[in-house]
């Protein structure tokens, strides 16, 4: 499974309050897992409303990020208002907020 993040030609370090790796915007950059990459991937795999929310395990399968690292990034996305979580059948599930969706769409425009 590949990942697509956009490369900023200036090598920006942060996007939308999110830590970015160097040159990680608009290019493959699987070596640099980060919150922006996770935000984009959550959008592209379809976790865009509560009915399409995903568990940590499901997100981990798609993104190939380990659960502890994922939890840290997801918590940051929630703090920034880009993601939400809720508990269902004793499992935490995650999806993007409208602000999170708009953030991703702004990357694609």
């Amino acid at each position, binding site marked *: 499974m590949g990942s697509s993040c956009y490369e900023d030609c200036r090598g920006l*370090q942060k996007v*939308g309050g999110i830590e970015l790796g160097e040159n990680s915007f608009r290019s493959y950059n699987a070596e640099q897992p980060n919150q922006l990459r996770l935000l984009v991937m959550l959008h592209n795999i379809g976790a865009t409303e509560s009915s399409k929310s995903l568990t940590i395990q499901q997100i981990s399968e798609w993104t190939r990020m380990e659960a502890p690292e994922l939890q840290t990034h997801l918590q940051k996305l929630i703090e920034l208002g880009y993601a939400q979580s809720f508990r269902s059948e004793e499992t935490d599930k995650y999806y993007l907020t409208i602000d999170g*969706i708009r953030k991703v769409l702004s*990357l694609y425009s």
Partner: protein
Amino acid sequence: MKIGKLSWEFPPRVVGGIARHCEGLAKALIQQNHEVYLFTLDFPGSPSYEEMDGIKVYRASTELGHPNFLTWVLLFNHFLEKKMAEVSQSVDFDVMHVHDWLAAFAGISFKRYVQKPMVLTVHSTEVGRAQGLRSADSFSIDGIEWWATYEADKVIVCSQSMKNEICGHFNLPQDKVDVIPNAIDTTQYHTTADRGSVRQRYGVGWDEKMILCVGRLVPQKGIEYFIRAIPNIINRYPEAKFVIVGEGWSRDFLESEARSTGHRKKIRFTGFVPDREVIDLMTSADVLVVPSIYEPFGIVALEGMATGVPVVASQVGGLSEVIEHNRTGIFVYPKSPESIAWGIDRILSDPDRARWLTENAKDKLEKAYSWEAVAMKTVEVYRKLVG
């Protein structure tokens, strides 16, 4: 005519200018007694089908996703195609109208499936947006854009500068490409907003100058050059305040540029603001700055003209066709903070002249940029193909 329109964005899914363009054009086509079937992507809270001012809006749900951007684009195109195939069982379309490369796969397949002509509107190009092709994704998108223009029976662009750009870059024959400008519904720009309270909401007092910049926070909008002009402007107008409206991936970079001016407290980043509020902001501002370095059309300049705010804009692309220097606005050099500061000073230092510019601008707007005229020209393009 029965017109099938395809766009990856349509309100409330608003990314850039394509959503508003599709909405304005579709409404005007309905007014001229055409049937519009608009196929787009789903958005939280929006139904999979609804009629909006007569436009039949179908929102395809992307049932399967993928982390990779281009794979995701291919997948949502597949679901758009499925939705269109379903609707075409009961609707005999006369023409398909595709907006930009993102919906091109579905448009091209569907053109073959229903054997009807396809019109493509190119709103911008990857080579222009990215100011070059520096990544594998950019190179792929550029190729898809070329393919879409090749497959289209007719291509529409919004300015002569875009026509020159795509004819040169994609090697298209001149007679395949028609120029039809963008438009705005001027009735939406008459606001009764209380200027004082709008300014107050954004921390600008009555006795201060409110300098507004509206656009996605991406490099092509040139906002960094506007920010770098701020120290110069403050030297001349210490009471000036700066409001930057929009969201985008460059936001943190721009905020750090704002800090480096030494005037961070005078600069406000609002993030995403709903259309109504943008109109109120424009109506309440002293100057609207459009510092783009790439702009196929520059609808924000038209919006500013409609609200009656004086416009200072870079002389690039479509902006150079929308604005007449010293008659409907002020042109400045792109990527030049000194020139931007000069343009803003031209407006702030001469309020009578600024008022004259805005009166000329409104007059030009009503004559040249109505959706009714755009719809009529677009139907002419359809008729050339349909017969």
